[in-house]
C-alpha cells in the first residue's frame, strides 16, 4: 500500500499523470487491504501470541519462550503430553495416508489413459467425492463402518469394529481419506499422461517392452514432476488433518488418532478456559513441520533436475 501511496503523491505535480496513478490503488488496493487485514496481520500476530499467556479475551501478557518450554520439555504438563501425542499421530497419519493418496490415483489415471470403455464415466465418478463436504462424508462412512448398522456386519459377517481398535482405526481413516480426496491428484496425472510423447511409447513397443517395464521406464520418468507436485501438496494437506478423526474416531481409541490440530482447536476454542497462547505455540510448531517438509520435498525436486 505504501508503495502505491508514495507513487501517487510523487506525481501530483504532473497534473494529468496524477489521475493515472490512482488506478493501481483502485485495482490492486481492495485485495491488498484484505490481504493485510486477514492474512499479514494475523500471521505476525499469531507468532506474537505464541509468546504470550493469551486467553482470547483479556490482554495478552508476554511470557517469552514459556509456552514452547512447556509443550516441548515440561514432563509434568498435560500440554506436553498432548503436544507429543498430537504430533506423533499427525505424523503417523501423514506417513500412512500420503503414499496411498499419491499411488492409488496414479494407477487409476494410468488405467483411464488407456481409454477403455466408459472412460469418461469412470473419471467423473472418481472425481465426485472430492467435492463433498467432509462432515457429510464422515457421517456416511461412520454408519457404513458401524458394527450395528453397516453392511460390513450385515453382508460380510464382520463383527470387528473398525473404529475402536488399532490398527483398524488408522486403516479406516486412510481408506476414507483416499476415497474422499483421490480426484485432484487423478486429474493432475491425467493431464500429465496426455503429455507423454507418443513416439517414446511406440519405440518401447518396438523394443518389445511389456506393460510394466513401459510404465517404469517411460511413463514414470515422464511425469515425475507431477508426482512430486502431488506428493508435496498431499503432504501439506494431510498435515492439516482434522475432520476425519474428529468425526470418525473421535480421536480414539485412547487418543491414538487424536491429531495435533484437534488439540489446537480444543485448547483455544474448546469448552473450558481458553489457553490460546499454548495453542498458538502448538500451531507454530505444526506450521514449522509443514514448512520443513515442503522445503525438503522442493529440494529433492530440484536435485532430480
Amino acid at each position, binding site marked *: 500500500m505504501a508503495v502505491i501511496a508514495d507513487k501517487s503523491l510523487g506525481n501530483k505535480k504532473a497534473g494529468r499523470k496524477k489521475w493515472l496513478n490512482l488506478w493501481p490503488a483502485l485495482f490492486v488496493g481492495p485485495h491488498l487491504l*484484505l490481504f493485510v487485514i*486477514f492474512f499479514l496481520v494475523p500471521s505476525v500476530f499469531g507468532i506474537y501470541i505464541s509468546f504470550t499467556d493469551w486467553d482470547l479475551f483479556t490482554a495478552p501478557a508476554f511470557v517469552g519462550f514459556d509456552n514452547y518450554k512447556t509443550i516441548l520439555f515440561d514432563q509434568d504438563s498435560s500440554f506436553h503430553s498432548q503436544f507429543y501425542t498430537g504430533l506423533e499421530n499427525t505424523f503417523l497419519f501423514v506417513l500412512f495416508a500420503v503414499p496411498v493418496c499419491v499411488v492409488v490415483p496414479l494407477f*487409476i489415471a494410468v*488405467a483411464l489413459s488407456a481409454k477403455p470403455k466408459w472412460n469418461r464415466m*469412470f473419471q467423473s*465418478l472418481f472425481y465426485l467425492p472430492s467435492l463433498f463436504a467432509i462432515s457429510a462424508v464422515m457421517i456416511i462412512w461412520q454408519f457404513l463402518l458401524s458394527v450395528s448398522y453397516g453392511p460390513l456386519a450385515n453382508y460380510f459377517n464382520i463383527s470387528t469394529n473398525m473404529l475402536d481398535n488399532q490398527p483398524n482405526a488408522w486403516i479406516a481413516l486412510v481408506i476414507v481419506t483416499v476415497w474422499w480426496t483421490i480426484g485432484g491428484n487423478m486429474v493432475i496425472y491425467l*493431464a500429465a499422461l496426455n503429455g507423454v510423447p507418443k513416439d517414446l511409447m511406440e519405440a518401447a513397443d518396438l523394443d518389445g517392452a511389456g506393460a510394466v517395464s513401459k510404465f517404469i521406464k517411460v511413463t514414470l520418468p515422464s511425469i515425475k514432476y507431477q508426482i512430486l507436485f502431488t506428493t508435496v501438496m498431499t503432504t501439506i494437506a494431510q498435515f492439516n488433518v482434522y475432520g476425519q478423526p474428529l468425526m470418525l474416531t473421535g480421536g480414539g481409541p485412547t487418543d491414538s488418532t487424536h491429531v495435533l490440530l484437534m488439540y489446537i482447536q480444543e485448547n483455544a476454542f474448546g469448552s473450558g478456559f481458553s489457553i490460546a497462547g499454548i495453542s498458538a505455540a502448538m500451531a507454530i510448531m505444526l506450521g514449522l513441520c509443514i514448512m520443513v517438509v515442503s522445503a525438503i520435498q522442493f529440494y529433492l525436486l530440484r536435485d532430480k533436475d
Partner: protein
Amino acid sequence: MKKTNKTKIIAFFFLLVMSVLWLFPILWGVFTSFKSEEEITAAAASFLPIHWTMSNYSELLIDNASSPVVKWFTNSLIIAVSHTVLVLIVVSLAAYGYTRLKFKGRDLLFGLLLASMMFPSVVNLIPLYSIMDKLGWVNNFLAVIVPGAAGVFNIFLVRQFVLGIPKTFDESAKMDGANEFQIFHLIILPLIRPVLTVVALFSFTGAWNDFLWPSIVLNDIDKLPITPGLQLLQGQYMTYPGIGTAGALIALVPTFLLYLFAQKYFMQSMSLSSGVKG
C-alpha cells in the same frame, strides 16, 4: 492392435472394480436415507429399501429445532454466494492490476504475495479469531464471507489468463479514449470469463465445504452453515443412520448439481494449477 485391446480390457476391469468401491458408499448412503429405522436395524437388511420412506427427510426438514437443517442450508447458500461474488470482484480487479497497470514495485509486490502462499495457514487460525472479535464479526456471516477473499492463488490463476491476451486489444481501445476501468470492463472481463467460471465454482464449493473455521467463529446454532452443522447432527442422531445419512445427502445436493452441470470446468482447473507449478 491386439496388444492395445488387451491393455484396454485390463484397464476396464480394474476401473470397474474400483468404481464399485467408490460408488458403494454413496449408493449405500442414499438407500439408507430412504429406509425406516426398523428396516435398517433388521438382521438381514437388504441393500435397497423394501419400503421407500421420506420420514428421515421430513424429520430433518420440518420444524427441527436442535438440527435446523433448512436454516443451515439457507445460511450456507447466503455465505457461499456472497463469498463467490466478493472473490470474483476482488480477484479480477487485482489480476488486471498486476498485469496491465504499470506502477513501482508491481512485480516485487506480486512475488511477495506468491511467496506468502508457502506460509502455513494453521498459524492464522487463532489470531484471525481475535481480529473477528475486534471487528465484532464473531457470530456474523461476514467472518466466513470476507477473510477467504484475501487468498492469492486465484489472482495467480486469472493473471496467467490475462497475460495471454494480446496488448494490442487494450491499445486500440486506449486510442479511442477508453480509461483503465473501461478497458478492464469492456475488453478484458469478457475474455477471462472461462477462468472466472472456474474461480467461481471453486469459491462456492470451498465456502460450502469449509468446516473448521466456521465451527470456530460461528457458535450460535441458527447461524451455522450446514457443513459444520452436520457435526451437531451427527451427535444428535448417533443411533439413527437413516436420519444421519439423509442430513449428509441434503448437504451434498448443491455441490453435486454444480458438478453435474459444470464438470469440465472442475477438471480443467486442476490441470491448470498443476501445469503451472509442475
